[in-house]
C-alpha cells in the first residue's frame, strides 16, 4: 500500500486513493477544501480548483516535484509522494486566488439567500478568502428558472461545480449534459428540467454548495439557524427514508438528506420523502441532528466540550502545523500554559 506524506503527516492508504481522500483519512487542518468534488458522484471534481495542493515529491521512484499545483480530488497518491497543503505559503496564496475568482461574480446576497448558514462558499470564503474584494465591475446575473415546481435554479449564485449535472446524469435517466454556453456565461442547462420527473432529482438541491438550487417548498420560510434539525426516518419503498427534518415547533419546514462532516450527502433520498411528507406524524424522530461546529446552525446549540480531546487536538496542531490556527486565538504563553 502506498505511503503518502501530507503536511508532514505520513499515512498508508489503499492503491487508487486520491490525495484528498488520503487527507480526509488524516483529518483536521490538512484536509483541503473541496467545492466540486463529491464522493458519491462519479467523475466529479477537478473544476473548482479550491482543493489544489503542492506536490513537492511525486513519488519514491520519481522524487521530482510536480511543476504545477494539482487538484487533490483528482490526483492519485503514489508511494513516497510528499504533499504540502497548509505548510506551503505559495499554495495558500494560490488557493486564496481561487476563492477570489469564485467570489468576484457571486452576488453576495447572503442576507436574502436560503443557503446562508449552510453554504460551502460562505465557509470557504470565511476560512480562505480575503476580507475585501478587488473586483469593481458589474457582476453577472441570470434570470431565475423553475425546475419543475419544487426546485428553483438561481444561476446568478452558481459556481459551476457541475455536481447537479452529475446528479441528473447519474441518478436520473435520459440526460446527456447540462451546461449551455461557454466561459463566464455558461449556465446550467434548462434541459435539466427533464430530470424533474425523476424520483431523485431533489438531490440536486442537497449537492449544490451554494444557493443556486433551493427547495421551493422551503424558500424564505426561515433562516436555517432558527430551525431545529432532527434526524428522522420513515419506511419508504424508494429510498432508505433516512432524512433530516428542519423544524420549528411542531412544523416541518424542510426535509433534506443527511450530510457528513464534509457536507456530502450520506444517502440519497427520494422526492417523495423530501417534498411530500411535511408532517411530524409522517416521521419517526431519532433525536437532534449534530451539525458541524463551523456552521452557524450550531450557534444556537451548546454542546459539552471533551477537554481531554481538545487537549489532544491542540497538541496535534502544534506538532504538525506549527499551531497556526491556535496562535490566532491564544498567545504563545497561553499555549505553553496549556501544554
Amino acid at each position, binding site marked *: 500500500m502506498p505511503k503518502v506524506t501530507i503536511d508532514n503527516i505520513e499515512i498508508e492508504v489503499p492503491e487508487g486513493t486520491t490525495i484528498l481522500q488520503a487527507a480526509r483519512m488524516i483529518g483536521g487542518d490538512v484536509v483541503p477544501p473541496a467545492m466540486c468534488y463529491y464522493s458519491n458522484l462519479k467523475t466529479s471534481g477537478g473544476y473548482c480548483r*479550491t482543493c*489544489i495542493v503542492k506536490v513537492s515529491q511525486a513519488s519514491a521512484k520519481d522524487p521530482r516535484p510536480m511543476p504545477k499545483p494539482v487538484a487533490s480530488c483528482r490526483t492519485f497518491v503514489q508511494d513516497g509522494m510528499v504533499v504540502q497543503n497548509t505548510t506551503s505559503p505559495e499554495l495558500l496564496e494560490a488557493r486564496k486566488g*481561487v476563492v477570489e*475568482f469564485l467570489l468576484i461574480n457571486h452576488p453576495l446576497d447572503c442576507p436574502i439567500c436560503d443557503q446562508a448558514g449552510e453554504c460551502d462558499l460562505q465557509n470557504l470564503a470565511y476560512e480562505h478568502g480575503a476580507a475585501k474584494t478587488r473586483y469593481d465591475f458589474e457582476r453577472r446575473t441570470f434570470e431565475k428558472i423553475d425546475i419543475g415546481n419544487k426546485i428553483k435554479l438561481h444561476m446568478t449564485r452558481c459556481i459551476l461545480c457541475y455536481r447537479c449535472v452529475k446528479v441528473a446524469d447519474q441518478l436520473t435517466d435520459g440526460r446527456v*449534459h447540462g*451546461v449551455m454556453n461557454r*466561459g463566464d456565461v*455558461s449556465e446550467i442547462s434548462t434541459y435539466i428540467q427533464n430530470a424533474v420527473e425523476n424520483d431523485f432529482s431533489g438531490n440536486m438541491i442537497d449537492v449544490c454548495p451554494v444557493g443556486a438550487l433551493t427547495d421551493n417548498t422551503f424558500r424564505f420560510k426561515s433562516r436555517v439557524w432558527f430551525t431545529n434539525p432532527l434526524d428522522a426516518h420513515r419506511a419508504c419503498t424508494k429510498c432508505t427514508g433516512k432524512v433530516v427534518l428542519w423544524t420549528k415547533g411542531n412544523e416541518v419546514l424542510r426535509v433534506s438528506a443527511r450530510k457528513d462532516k464534509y457536507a456530502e450527502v450520506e444517502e440519497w433520498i427520494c422526492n417523495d420523502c423530501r417534498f411530500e411528507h411535511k408532517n411530524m406524524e409522517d416521521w419517526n424522530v431519532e433525536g437532534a441532528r449534530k451539525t458541524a461546529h463551523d456552521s452557524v446552525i450550531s450557534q444556537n446549540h451548546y454542546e459539552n466540550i471533551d477537554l481531554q480531546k481538545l487537549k489532544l487536538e491542540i497538541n496535534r496542531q502544534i506538532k504538525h502545523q506549527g499551531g497556526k490556527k491556535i496562535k490566532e486565538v491564544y498567545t504563545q504563553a497561553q499555549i505553553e500554559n496549556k501544554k
Partner: protein
Amino acid sequence: MGRKLLIEHVHVPGIETLEVYRSKGGYTSVEKAIKTMSPEAVVEEVKKSGLRGRGGAGFPTGLKWSFLAKPPGVARYLVCNADESEPGTFKDRYLMEKIPHALIEGMITSSYALGAHTSYIYIRGEYFYVARILEQAIDEAYAAGWLGKNILGSGYDLDLYVHIGAGAYICGEETALLESLEGKRGNPRIKPPFPAIAGLYGCPTVVNNVETIAAVVPIVNEGGCEYAKIGIGKSTGTKLISAGGHLNKPGVYEIEMSISVEEFIYSDEYCGGISGGKKLKACVPGGSSVPILPADLLLTTANGEKRMMTYESLSDGGFATGSMMGSGGFIAYNETACIVRNTWNFSRFYHHESCGQCSPCREGTGWMEKILHRLENGHGKMEDIDLLWDIQRKIEGNTICPLGDAAAWPVAAAIRHFREEFEYHVKYPEKIKDPNHFHKQSFLSSKQSVTI
C-alpha cells in the same frame, strides 16, 4: 534559398488535384512505407528525424508515437488537429487549402505507422470551404485506392473522415477536441489519463497538428537522418511560419530552422521589412499565447546572441527575456502599435474562448479583459497594473488546461516589457482618447525594455 519540403509545389497549377500532386512525386511515402517498411520502422524514422509537434508545445513526435498504448483487440486512432484558431496562426489553412493531398498522404503514412484503421481530421467550423477541399481530395484518394480496403494490395485498411467543429478555440486543446469529436461539449478532460492511453472513445489515440503530419511525408521519403540535417540542434527540419502584422510581405513562409529572426523579418526572401517605413517596436513570435518581446530582445537574446528562428533560441532567457516558437504565428508591430490595446484584444479573445469549467480561467479571463479595456480607454488606475499582474499570476498553472496559461502569458509579458506604456495610459487619458493614439506620434519609452 532555403529548402522547401512542404510547400515547394504550392504554385503549380492544379496541385490540389491528385493527378498533378502525384506527378510531383505525391504518395511515394505511402508506397514506400506500406510496401517496404514495417510500421515500427516508420516510427523509428520519425524518431530519428527529431520532428517536434507543430501545434504549439513542440513535443517530440516520435516519442509521442512510441507512447501509444497497443492493447490487443483495441482500436487505435490518429486524429489530426486542424482546429487552428490561435490569433496570428494561419499556416495549416494555407497548406490544406493549397495542397490538400499533402495532409491526406501524411495521414495515410502516419496511420499506417500507428496501426490506426480509422482516422479523423478535426477542422474548425470557420474553415468550412477548406473542409470541402479536403473532402474532395479524400474522395479522389479513395477512388485511386490510396484509402479504403486493402491499400496497395497490402491488406492494410484505412478510413479517413473530416469532422467539422462548431467554432471554438478550446476544441484545439487535444482532449476538448476528442470530446467534441465524440459529439459532446468541448470541455478539456482532466488528465491523466492522456490520449495515448485513453483518447477517442476511450481508446489509445494520437493527436497531431496538420503540419506535423504533413512533415511525415518528406521524413519517410528522404529518411529521418536526412531530415534532421536541416536546422539547428533540437530544432530539426523546416517550419511553416504565418507572418502577419506590420510587415511588407505578410504571408506563409516555409523556413529552415537555421535562419535568424532578423533575416526572417528583413530579407526579401521572407517578410521584406517593416511596413510603412517605420521601425519594429515589438513582436509576438509564435501566436497570441506566447510572450510578446520588444524589438531589441527579439533580435538579440539577453546575452547578446543573435536570436534564431528555432525552438531553443526563441525561448532563450525563459519568460524573463525570451518567448516561444508556439504555433508559428509571427506577429510584428511597428511604432504605431499600442501594446495595451493589443493586450486587451488578446484578452478579449481568451475571455470569449474560455470553456468555463475551471474557476481561475472562467472568472480571471473576464476580469483581465475588463481591466485592460478600462486602461486602454483612459479610465484605468495605477493599481490596475499590479492587479492585472496578480490576476494573471493566479490563473497561470492553476487551471485544468493550458488555455489559462495562454491567457495569462501575454498579459504578463506586456506588463513585464511595456509597463511604462501602461502607466502612460493612466497618466495621460486625454492623449489616448483617439483609438489610433500612437499613429501620429509613437510612444517613446525611456528605455528600450523594462524588466521586472
